[in-house]
């Protein structure tokens, strides 16, 4: 089996799809830089030139609009944001324009744009360089949001995003870039909107996405002898694979949602509400949301440790849920009182 890293999978996908389809453009800050986006864009400028690999001025809102306008006129742009924190500057073009366009004009004009947003947590980067904003964008109708967790999914879902006729936000996380996995050599497409069961289990379901899937899997490996834990990888936030979630809840009756973003009005809250609305009677315990506290990301490593969920905290969470049926996740975070 051919194994490559997550970042190699992205780079390979971009090379292959730009070679296959000359309407595909890569546009964004740092796409010709040796370090802005890791090694994911290496070699693209040399291979495809300045017309198709466009490193841009610092103008997030206009650059997003420019990508939208090129999509309307027949291009297949991949708009890259090396840190998704800066996507707030492009909110108008993403939310008011790209996401509304198809509906607002009576389904006549579509915007086939891939917005590639990168999460850069940790490393003492603090409040404006560390944010995971997936929930913010999932709120918007008309915008698909995907968060692949493995190199295999990264390749198949990046192809799917580019080929999709709608705006798709493809979110990855720099913490995933070194992870290795099986990736077929040629181009292939995975369906947007389907989640995956990463591990089957009977006692409790961990629902996660992106890097948090790996936290969930590490937790499972540490508790394997004690409990039978199921891990669901959502892969897509919009559309959401609700059937997969409900089936798992029916089986285990206990749910812990691992969300790499903030808790209030977040992805975990949405899933929790859906479970309560549709499969409440199967629950054996209250649904638990493991998410970031409602505080900006801190800089100091000492504070970062308190801020982010990890497998060690998750062990306590799972054990308590299994023993007592509930747990106050906040106790393990930030303020321990």
């Amino acid at each position, binding site marked *: 089996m051919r194994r490559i890293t997550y970042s190699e999978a992205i780079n390979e996908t971009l090379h292959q799809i730009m070679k296959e389809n000359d309407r595909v*453009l890569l546009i964004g800050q740092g796409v010709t830089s040796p370090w802005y986006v890791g090694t994911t864009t290496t070699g693209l400028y040399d291979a495809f030139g300045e*017309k*198709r690999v*466009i490193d*841009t*001025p610092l*103008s997030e*809102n*206009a*650059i*997003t*609009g*420019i*990508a*939208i*306008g*090129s*999509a*309307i*006129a*027949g*291009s297949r*742009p991949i708009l890259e944001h090396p840190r998704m924190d800066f996507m707030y500057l492009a909110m*108008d*073009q993403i939310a*008011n*324009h790209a996401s509304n*366009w*198809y*509906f*607002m*004009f*009576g*389904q*006549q*004009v*579509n915007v086939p744009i891939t917005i590639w947003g990168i999460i850069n947590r940790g490393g003492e980067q603090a409040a404006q360089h560390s944010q995971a904003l997936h929930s913010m964008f999932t709120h918007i*109708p*008309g915008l*698909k949001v995907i968060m692949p967790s493995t190199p295999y999914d990264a390749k198949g879902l990046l192809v799917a995003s580019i080929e999709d*006729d*709608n705006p798709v936000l493809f979110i990855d996380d720099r913490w995933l870039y070194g992870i290795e996995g099986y990736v077929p050599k040629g181009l292939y497409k995975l369906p947007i909107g389907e989640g995956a069961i990463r591990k089957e289990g009977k006692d409790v379901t961990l629902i996660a996405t992106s890097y948090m899937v790996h936290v969930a899997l590490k937790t499972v490996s540490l508790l394997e002898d004690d409990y039978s834990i199921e891990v669901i990888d959502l892969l897509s936030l919009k559309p959401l694979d609700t059937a997969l979630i409900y089936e798992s809840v029916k089986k285990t009756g206990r749910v812990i949602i691992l969300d790499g973003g903030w808790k209030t009005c977040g992805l975990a809250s949405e899933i929790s509400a859906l479970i309560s609305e549709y499969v409440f009677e199967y629950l054996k315990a209250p649904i638990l949301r493991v998410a970031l506290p409602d505080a900006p990301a801190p800089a100091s490593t000492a504070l970062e440790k308190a801020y982010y969920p990890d497998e060690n905290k998750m062990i306590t969470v799972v054990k308590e849920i299994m023993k007592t049926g509930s747990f106050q996740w906040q106790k393990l975070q930030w303020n321990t009182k």
Partner: protein
Amino acid sequence: MIGDQFYESISRESIENLPESLLKDLYHTMLKIRIFEEKVALLVEKKQIFTPCHLYIGQETVAAGVCASLKSDDYVYSTHRSHGHYIAKGGDIRTLMAEIFGRATGCSKGYGGSMHACSPDIGLPGSSAIVGGTIPIAVGTALAFFNEGKHRVSVTFFGDGATTEGVLYESLNFAKLKNMPVIFVCENNFYSTHLHISDMQSNIKISKRAEAFNVPAFTVDGNNVISVYNTAKSAIEKARHGKGPSFIECLTYRWRGHVGPDWDLDKGIRNKEEVEWWVNNCGIKRMEKLLLSEGILTDSEKINLINKLSDEVEEAVEFAKNSPFPEVQDYKNEVFK
């Protein structure tokens, strides 16, 4: 009076080298917009139309003068004040009226309303009600056109209000940096909703700001259709032949209020003398006077044309009123393609 210094009469000399058919077409387009808009104003007053209508009355010269040099596969992007651009680019007034009436036969199938005219077939892929919103989108379309190499041109229409939005300057910078075939058309009507330009802008010479980006910029009498036509024609030809973007500031005036048919004379926003000055310098009347005095248009031709256009507008109203409302379907199939 603001605007005084820019006023010029349409001279005989200025039309000497222009074909009569073109002069008649310009007059025809302006008149068509005026008659259409006057009817809309009346129907809003009669409470038969509910969607907020931002009327183009008084500014017809700009849309007509610019669009006369565009081909059907050139794209224009419009604003919340979208009717005039739609008509000037060659849109069907029956489907525009139906859109304003919220009908399924509308140009945006009843999903957009007055602020979101759209007609992909004639090269109007959308109109945004977020001020300045389509400026970068037009630049992006120019990027796709540029890459395609077919010498197509993209135009963005916007008001003076959009020139206090940062996205304009991000867009001007990128357009010039990459030499994009895009024309920025600023319709300076001196008011942003209720505020006069002098209450909004530290320097009201808008075109100067485009010059700061090394974009060729022109300020023209926006009620002189020949000035608008000549300036736009030369800018469009330049863009078409790889010579990059231009910025055209057209000084004009909207007769009615920001939205709706009201003249805004009793609200302390503007005075009667100012409105009368502009009404007396109506771009359509000025052109009409010249065409009549030069014998290009006769009185009976004029009356016949007004009658014909009035009939067409009445027919459009009948078409709209007799059209069905959109059916309520599963919205999920309409949000994504």
